[in-house]
């Protein structure tokens, strides 16, 4: 290890210890706080991990690597334990085996036994065959089952929500509440619920769908009128993406605010 690395590591460790002790002294002032040192360590460690992850903005470094490996390891273990206790012990065992239910101390309802649960058990066991050199091909069967059934189920769902309902939503009048040109001019206004705004909105919906579909038509080259419609389609898509971008970034800012609030309030206590 380089000398500079040792110095940096020592400084960070020292800062961590100082922060821990200082936080413990702050928390110790609260008479209701029972676990001063543990709580102080938790806050300091969370702040350290936050800063370690943020240090990635500078460049890859040992602190980021530490936080990354800890995060990956803990989360992988957590989800494995969750999967075992919620899926196998929580859902499967009480429905198939009384002795296993007693072993795991979960209530067993003999009258709720459902042997259909053995089907996913068998499929799960078949998946493990990929660990075998000779029987690896067996693991393709459960994969085929999962992909095939879900694709079939999704087909109907998407056909309905993304096709039929979306197509029928395009059937909008291009002249809203039309009672003649004179009436239209006489009542012209920019209200969102006015005749002009609704008519323009419906034209945007119709042309947007039409040109968008032309852009996603793959059987013909985008030239001539077809190309022009396609270009309008991609413009409409890009304007939509721009609006979506701004909307989502606003949401992400709130996440950043949450983290900064943690650092300045819970850790440093600079804001109340």
């Amino acid at each position: 290890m380089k000398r500079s690395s040792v110095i940096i590591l020592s400084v960070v460790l020292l800062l961590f210890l100082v922060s821990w002790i200082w936080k413990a002294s702050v928390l110790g002032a609260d008479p209701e706080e029972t676990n001063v040192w543990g709580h102080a360590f938790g806050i300091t460690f969370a702040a350290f991990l936050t800063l370690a992850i943020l240090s990635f903005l500078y460049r890859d470094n040992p602190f980021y690597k530490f936080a990354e490996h800890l995060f990956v390891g803990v989360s992988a273990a957590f989800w494995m334990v969750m999967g075992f206790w919620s899926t196998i012990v929580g859902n499967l065992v009480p429905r198939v085996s009384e002795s296993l239910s007693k072993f795991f101390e979960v209530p067993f309802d003999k009258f709720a036994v459902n042997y259909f649960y053995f089907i996913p058990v068998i499929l799960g066991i078949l998946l493990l065959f990929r660990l075998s050199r000779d029987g690896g091909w067996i693991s393709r069967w459960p994969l085929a089952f999962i992909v095939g059934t879900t694709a079939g189920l999704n087909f109907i769902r998407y056909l309905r929500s993304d096709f039929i309902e979306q197509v029928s939503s395009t059937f909008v009048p291009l002249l809203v509440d039309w009672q003649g040109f004179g009436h239209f001019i006489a009542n012209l206004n920019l209200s969102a619920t006015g005749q002009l705004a609704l008519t323009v909105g419906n034209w945007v919906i119709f042309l947007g769908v039409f040109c968008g579909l032309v852009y996603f038509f793959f059987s013909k080259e985008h030239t001539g009128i077809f190309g022009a419609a396609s270009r309008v389609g991609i413009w409409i898509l890009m304007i939509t993406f721009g609006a979506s971008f701004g909307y989502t970034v606003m949401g992400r800012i709130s996440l950043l605010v949450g983290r900064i609030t943690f650092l300045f309030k819970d850790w440093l206590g600079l804001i109340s």
Partner: protein
Amino acid sequence: MKYLLSAVIVLGLLASAAWAQEAEPATPVDTTAAADTVSIEPPAPVGNLRAYDSDNDHGHAVTIEWELSPDDGAGANSVVAYEVFRWYPDFWDTVQQVRADLVAARQLRASGTLDVEGDPDDYVKELAAEHQEMLSRLPEAHEQYPNNGEFRSLRVVPFGATTFEDQGPKDRLAEDFLPDYCDFYYRVDAVTKVDSIRTPSEIVGPVQSYGQWFNTGRIVVLCFVVIFGLLTIFFVQRARAGAELYVRPIAGIEAVDDAIGRATEMGRPILYVLGLGTAADVATIASFTILSRVAKQVAEYQTQLIVPTYDPIVMSVAQEVVKSAYMDAGRPDDYSEDIVYFVTQSQFAYVAAVNGVMLRERPATNVYMGMFHAESLLLAETGAIAGSIQISGTDQIAQLPFFIVACDYTLIGEELYAASAYLGREPVLLGSLKAQDVAKAAVVIFALIGVIWSTAGSSLFQNLFKVTD
């Protein structure tokens, strides 16, 4: 001292409350209700009461319809609500008692605290058999109408309502279970603001609930499934017969070959990210086809490929795909199980790990194809910092903007599915892509017709596309 003080305060509060109650001046008797009772006439009953089995369901539901009372919103305008009643045989209470005993016994048995003489399991079985036998006698009990039973309230609905669905769950142990094939009788009372002043309707019945085998509200879905199925089969057969099916060039896909060549020249790896989708998501399935093509070329050029995965099943499928691609390229020995590996199923931990790989391995090309969520920009931005050529594709509309701003090429939505057909050139994929194009052309025609009809003020065409649950 503290307790003494608290006791004094509590006593003080109680005493003051008692004094307030005594001292409060007597509230004047509200004579309004009595006056209303005198002035309100019983309203006219609802008209044309009908009850029928609810359509397109699994049974256990009856729909009741009526016309508004003439005094609802008009006439004396005295109707404030409607109360719906159903006739229950006395035997219903006996069934409910056994049901409640059975539910309680099952719960106690499950927790091991059922204290009965003999075997607890036998006791629960006997109760279940008794309950089952009683349920089978319910149709017979309903046939005794109007003897040995009474009308009971189901629900009060506000004025202006003209329909009510008497619906129960399929679960026979549910308290509000509604048995099929029983003769039900209904009555609807027009209620005034004085509850006792009401007018019952005529009684309607008998009506039975039962399930339907076919949901007619979804015929339009069936039609489109059949049409698309036939179209796909037709184009797949054409592709298999060797017909030349044109697919226009897609910039993002053309770039894949160049990117792999660049990685080979630079001697750096290619990072392929399948996203957070499961193996059953359409975007992930399309991504497998593209991965197959990329892996085959990588094997041919003997470049390094890195595929970190989020989902264990996706990892298994991806391993199979990459292994097959290496075999197709004639280099099975170059395949290693370490090419495709599992990271974690935690979204941001996965991102942290992949970002680490980008900065440490410095891949020449990053390919993001599949389903992405909030991690899209984190990945793409890090890849841009690492100086990699980036090609992305997803059908997640909310994430496309991030890929568009941070990647060199982006496959938008359906381009991802088209890419798999374009690269794979398999008859099945090409055939389905062509069928989709025909479907899009059909949508344009439908939209044109629908808009013309709608502009003309008719909703007839729109109703053809109506799907009900």
